[in-house]
């Protein structure tokens, strides 16, 4: 009885310690990532402003604002045009000084940095959000859910499919399916949009089973259930395209990791003890492999994020990427810069989430905690 209680309290203590370690690890990672993001966005701003583009945006905005103010001011209406013009120029100069456009670039760049970090990048030149606003932040935030939905679903499908297929292939090492996967893995060198084109040709243009693109049918269904169903229907092709573009290589590498880990001595030992195959797989093979798999998966997801602008354009998916594509077409500078910033955020969040999962599944974080600096 007392033995059970003691082991229970030990277990509780261990859990507490683990929790502490994970929290500490998470906080440290969060802080380093935040620094990383700030540096990354600062670099982005430097690249963007090499030709003074951000200054131009700000100047244009000031001019527009001052012009509107001067034209609307009843006290200035009676002035002769030259005097009014002069007054306007004075005001513009004053405002530019107020915004610090006369300061050296180093100081200005830090102001841009804080603006960018809060996505306070002013108004777009051409693009508007669905609600008609020209605030860059609103335009982008409105598009964010669509992108998150598409890539979230695709990443989940990809991860679990690759995991299970990899496991089952490692069981049937050398079988026909195994060889086929190995042979097909070079197919993963093509990006998702490329497979998207083929899928659209086959399933939308020729067979007419799935839509050419878009997120919901027009007009969108009123009933929330039907809406979700329609969303799923529109998700099939893009998710398949992303999955197709990465699945073979992922399955191949997962299978290889499993094969390497299942030839370890402790797995042989477990087999000799007569443990069930399922248990061996779950506790002795999957567990130590997961951190490696998650690391390689993280790199994959980052690669997928990168391809979003083209992918969403091909599938006409109303997400961030397509907005960036439109912004390029319209030379909408604020939106282009802000999209880059928001992608940096998304990448950082992805890295952080995967780090967090890594911390949970990595036995080293749980047990030792000493080798984390490696």
């Amino acid at each position, binding site marked *: 009885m007392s033995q059970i209680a003691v082991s229970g309290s030990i277990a509780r203590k261990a859990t507490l310690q683990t929790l502490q370690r994970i929290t500490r690890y998470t906080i440290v990672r969060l802080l*380093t*990532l935040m620094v*990383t*993001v700030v*540096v*990354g966005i600062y*670099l*982005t701003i430097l*690249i*963007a402003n*090499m*030709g003074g*583009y951000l200054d131009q945006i700000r100047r244009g905005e000031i001019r527009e604002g001052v012009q509107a103010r001067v034209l609307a001011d009843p006290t200035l209406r009676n002035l002769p045009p030259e005097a009014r013009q002069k007054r306007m120029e004075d005001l513009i100069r004053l405002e530019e000084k107020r915004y610090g456009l006369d300061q050296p670039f180093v100081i200005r760049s830090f102001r841009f940095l804080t603006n960018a970090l809060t996505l306070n990048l002013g108004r777009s030149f051409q693009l508007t959000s669905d609600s008609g606003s020209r605030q860059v932040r609103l335009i982008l935030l409105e598009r964010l859910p669509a992108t998150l939905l598409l890539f979230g679903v695709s990443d989940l499908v990809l991860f679990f499919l690759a995991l299970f297929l990899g496991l089952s292939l490692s069981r049937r090492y050398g079988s026909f399916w195994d060889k086929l996967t190995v*042979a097909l*893995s*070079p*197919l*993963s*060198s*093509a*990006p998702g*949009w*490329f497979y998207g*084109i*083929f899928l*659209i*040709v086959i399933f*939308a*243009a020729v067979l007419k089973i799935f839509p*050419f693109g878009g997120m919901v049918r027009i007009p969108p269904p009123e009933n929330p259930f039907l809406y979700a169903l329609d969303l799923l229907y529109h998700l099939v092709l893009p998710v398949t395209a992303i999955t197709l573009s990465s699945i073979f290589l992922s399955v191949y590498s997962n299978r290889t990791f499993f094969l390497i880990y299942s030839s370890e001595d402790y797995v042989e030992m477990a087999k000799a003890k007569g443990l069930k195959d399922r248990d061996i797989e779950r506790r002795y093979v999957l567990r130590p492999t997961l951190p490696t798999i998650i690391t390689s998966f993280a*790199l994959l997801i*980052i690669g997928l*994020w*990168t*391809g*979003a*602008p*083209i992918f969403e*354009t*091909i599938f006409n998916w109303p997400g961030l990427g397509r907005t*960036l*594509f439109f912004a*390029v*077409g319209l*030379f909408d*500078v604020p939106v*282009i*810069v802000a*999209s*880059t910033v928001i*992608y*940096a955020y*998304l*990448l*950082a969040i992805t*890295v952080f989430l995967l780090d967090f999962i890594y911390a949970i599944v990595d036995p080293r974080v749980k047990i030792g905690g000493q080798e984390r600096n490696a």
Partner: protein
Amino acid sequence: MNELKRTWQELRYYPSAVASLILIVFMVIASIWIVIAIPYREAVRLWRGGESVWYQLPKTVPPKWVNWFRREKLPETLILDTRQHPEWKTYEPAGDGRRIVMEFTIPFYADQFPQELSMYFYVTSSDTFKPPFVSLSWKTPDGRSLRVSDFGLQSAKFNYRFAQDQKLIQRLGGEEHNIGLFVDPQSSPPRPLKGEYRLKVEILTFEANTDVDVEFVQYGKVYGWFGTDHLRRDLKVGLLWGLPVALMFGLLASVGTSLAAMLIAAIGSWFGGWVDDLIQRVTEVNLVLPFLPILIMVGTFYSRSIFVILGVTVLLSIFGGAIKSYRAIFLQVREMPYIEAARAYGAGDGRIILRYMVPRLIPLLIPALVSGIPSYVFLEASLAVIGLGDPVLPTWGKIIKDAEFNGALYKGMYYWVLEPSFLLMISGLAFAVLGFSLDRIFNPRLRGV
């Protein structure tokens, strides 16, 4: 050299690798041939030259080999030019000038109507230009005759478009000219009548020394081995020139990236300390930098030239995941006895890095280099698809972009998308398969490291 031979011998056991190697060699030879046969200026002229280069070509038609798979044959493009066949013209004096008569024989055996008919007149005359007068008549294989049109040649270069002649449409009973002229009157739904059509051109000049040459173009519904796009351009130029461009971009980017990454990893792990730390931090920051959006930014704000994009691509890809894995191995290599021996005889840092550490990882470098190529080939295409392709060079990505933009998939013009995609896939896959095999050949040896 010995190493190379051994690799080759091992490579022979992978049939897929041999096939891909042959394909790569073929592609390299083909690109060299293309660059010599269609020099850069010529390619740019053919791709961006304007209407005068491609006016003879039909608009958005598939390649001619689609006829092999169709029961209903599509008409081909027919060009009849008296400048190449002066013997078709007969002259007889008439008044002050002369009468020039020619008859074009148009064999027509397709199952669908042609896309359009058009005639180009080239008048050579003395300084005082007196507009010659043209009358056209049409004779079908079953013997019906039809007056097509009469008009004066208002300028020395005159284009008569059948489609824009409202009177002709009236004469044909409201039918479009391409249907009305070729239709079999007994057929319903309308089908073309097969046989030899005759177009008689009578030109009356008002000066004895005036001569007129006529070019007749029957725009078909197939063209060449590759088809045409929305500007009537022959896709051949773009598809062929896309190959050297893609190979160059892929090779340069991959070689630049892998070599630089390896060198930097070697330097970092050799010197350690703050150098290593700096490299590590830069890599972490680079992981968060959105690669494509930054490329898009550079392309939109500064330059779309393929070399600028190439440079930025290499710069952004150097500090990628590869640097971490190279570093891990270099850290092991650094502690090996032969390095210690080198240090003992007084080798400098540069010598140790370049002559001792980097060569050690060459077996790892080669597969990574080869398998890196496809991703850059596709990257170039991806950028072109968003509209950031090189402004002058024809590339595969730009063809895909044009096709997408003009709704090729919706309108059933699949050839337009599938041809460049197919070429992209072939070239990408060749390198991917080879890289994959090389990886399997080289890596077992790496376990000794």
